[in-house]
């Protein structure tokens, strides 16, 4: 008797609970959860940074990272920095902060001192526990790190600054300035940027008189004809070096190119992005043996050159080296002897 009376009540209660639960997250999503980052109150942004703030800090200045999230600037240069991408590691070293970097990814192999620093995992599989154990006072993440992992690190109370890479060479300089800002090495960042910019300006000046714009195909060494499309910074570097990327019309960062299109485009110069001399030799050999491709101008005239994949694939200071080398190879008359 008792059971028979209770069951319907219970089932109704459960259903009601179910409905209530289904509805409430909706309203919360519209109300609380959707606050855009720029509307986060000042005080809350401060509190969010919690234990990361040095105790003697005055009210810190708030900057925004590339996700638009507020980040309180530390009062002085952080002592224990974790870098979650190779290009960030490289810039940190270029700013003279190598000694303060306590964690890097397993891909961070430049400069070679970075290899000795404890590894936090890879770009898409950084280990949260390892990052926490390094007890950093600054974590610099990259947009390519899975956001959910980056957010999990932030929720542990660590100060996380997220940076994006750019689609063009000009975006490298603000990136360096931002890293300089957040590590309080603004002066050194300005010097570094000025130095790099003067080298770019020198290339620009030498190329002003160039008459030709050679057609360029950039091959990423490996399986298939992978190349850089119009959205990649390499496309911009090719243009700045006085060339025309034949794959420029592809609206992608990296794209698989069709063999027929290379034959039709008939590039004057082919750059092979290789990790080693041997890779370059085998990549060049493969191009020369590919039916059809063996007839394009670059192969016939032997203008196939190696580019350091390690430098070219990282949005860091070494891109200027890549630019200078590329310009010298594309325009030997204007930039002769400057490789």
């Amino acid at each position, binding site marked *: 008797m008792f059971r028979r009376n209770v069951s319907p009540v219970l089932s109704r209660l*459960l259903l009601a609970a179910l409905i209530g639960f*289904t509805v409430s997250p909706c309203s919360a999503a519209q109300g609380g959860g959707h606050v855009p980052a720029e509307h986060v109150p000042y005080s809350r942004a401060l509190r969010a940074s919690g234990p990361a703030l040095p105790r003697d800090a005055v009210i810190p200045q708030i900057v925004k990272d590339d996700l638009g999230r507020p980040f309180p600037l530390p009062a002085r240069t952080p002592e224990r920095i974790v870098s979650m991408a190779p290009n960030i590691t490289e810039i940190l070293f270029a700013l003279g902060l190598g000694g303060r970097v306590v964690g890097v990814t397993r891909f961070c192999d430049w400069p070679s001192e970075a290899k000795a620093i404890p590894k936090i995992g890879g770009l898409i599989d950084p280990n949260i526990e390892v990052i926490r*154990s390094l007890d950093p006072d600054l974590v610099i993440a990259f947009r390519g790190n899975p956001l959910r992992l980056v957010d999990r690190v932030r929720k542990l109370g660590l100060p996380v600054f997220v940076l994006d890479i750019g689609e063009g060479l000009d975006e490298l300089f603000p990136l360096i300035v931002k890293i300089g800002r957040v590590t309080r090495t603004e002066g050194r960042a300005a010097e570094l940027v000025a130095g790099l910019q003067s080298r770019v300006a020198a290339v620009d000046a030498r190329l002003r008189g160039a008459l030709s714009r050679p057609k360029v195909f950039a091959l990423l060494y490996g399986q298939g004809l992978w190349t850089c499309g119009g959205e990649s910074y390499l496309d911009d570097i090719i243009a700045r070096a006085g060339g025309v990327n034949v794959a420029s019309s592809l609206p992608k960062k990296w794209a698989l190119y069709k063999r027929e299109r290379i034959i039709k485009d008939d590039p004057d110069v082919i750059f092979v992005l290789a990790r080693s001399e041997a890779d370059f030799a085998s990549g060049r050999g493969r191009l020369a043996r590919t039916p059809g491709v063996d007839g394009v101008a670059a192969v016939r005239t032997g203008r196939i050159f190696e580019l350091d994949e390690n430098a070219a694939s990282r949005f860091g200071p070494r891109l200027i080296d890549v630019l200078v080398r590329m310009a010298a190879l594309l325009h030997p008359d204007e930039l002769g002897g400057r490789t």
Partner: protein
Amino acid sequence: MSRKAGRRLFWAVSLFLCLAGFSLSILTGPVRTTPGDLIGFIKAPDRVLSAIFIDLRLSRAVLAFLVGAALALSGAILQGYFRNPMADPFVVGVSSGAALGAVVAAAIGFEAAAFGFSGPGLLAFLSGLGIVSLVYVLSLRRGGFKVETILLTGIAAGALASALTSFFLFMRSDSYDQAVFWLLGSFQLAEWGQAATIAPWVVLCLLASVWLARDMDLLALGDESAQALGSPVRRVRKAFLAMSALLAALSVAVSGIIGFVGLVVPHWVRILIGPGHRALFLSSALAGGTFLLYCDLLARTLLPAELPIGVITAAVGAPFFLYLLHKKR
């Protein structure tokens, strides 16, 4: 061995394994820690160790246990509900529906987090429940309420949701990493907020299902017989369906789809302690939680990078299940 003694043994072993699993989970991880570190930490808490032991490892172990319990209980309920040993949260479409929600959220960049759920988790939860409601309504309209109809409708709706999921994955191939997380499950992002969100519902559903267990036993005789014996069949069925859907949707929302637990754990338990639903529900929850605790331990220690937990549950669960099945014969 008498059934009662067998049950006691089962409970003793399960509880021991469960506690051992929690201890191992707290002590194991990429950062090397010893039991001495843990004792030292309890005596004098330290910021870094507190984050590692409590915020990362313990929260993860608790969440894995809760999800395992929820999935196994959901499976035990559905197998009784459909009087079909093949039933699990997949057949009524909850899992596929939830996966669709998560993948769509990842594809459109839906980030509105609430209640410890991430944006995709929230959408997974809603679409999981949505698809069950749809299946239920569709099944009702075909004249009365038939178990076969809901089963087939559920399978069809699940297949449709899976097709849409594949479509979104195809369209947004750059969300692949997110998709793997949702389609194969992981506790990598576990945090206390999620555990606190699902814990009350898991406990509530467990208590309610134990309370209604006798009605579930009667359902095994057929709906007419159960009705004749005084069980309010339709209401009982509604309550059980709602509970199993809620449990499965909550699980997917925090950890992605984790297959096999809901299907196999109730069978293990049935083989070991018999078919009575009261004991079955309680034991399935304990065994499911413990099982997933160990699976997660393997998922995060087997390789330097984390494996999706769905890979482990099937790889470990299937052989053990076959062994039990054949030993029984």
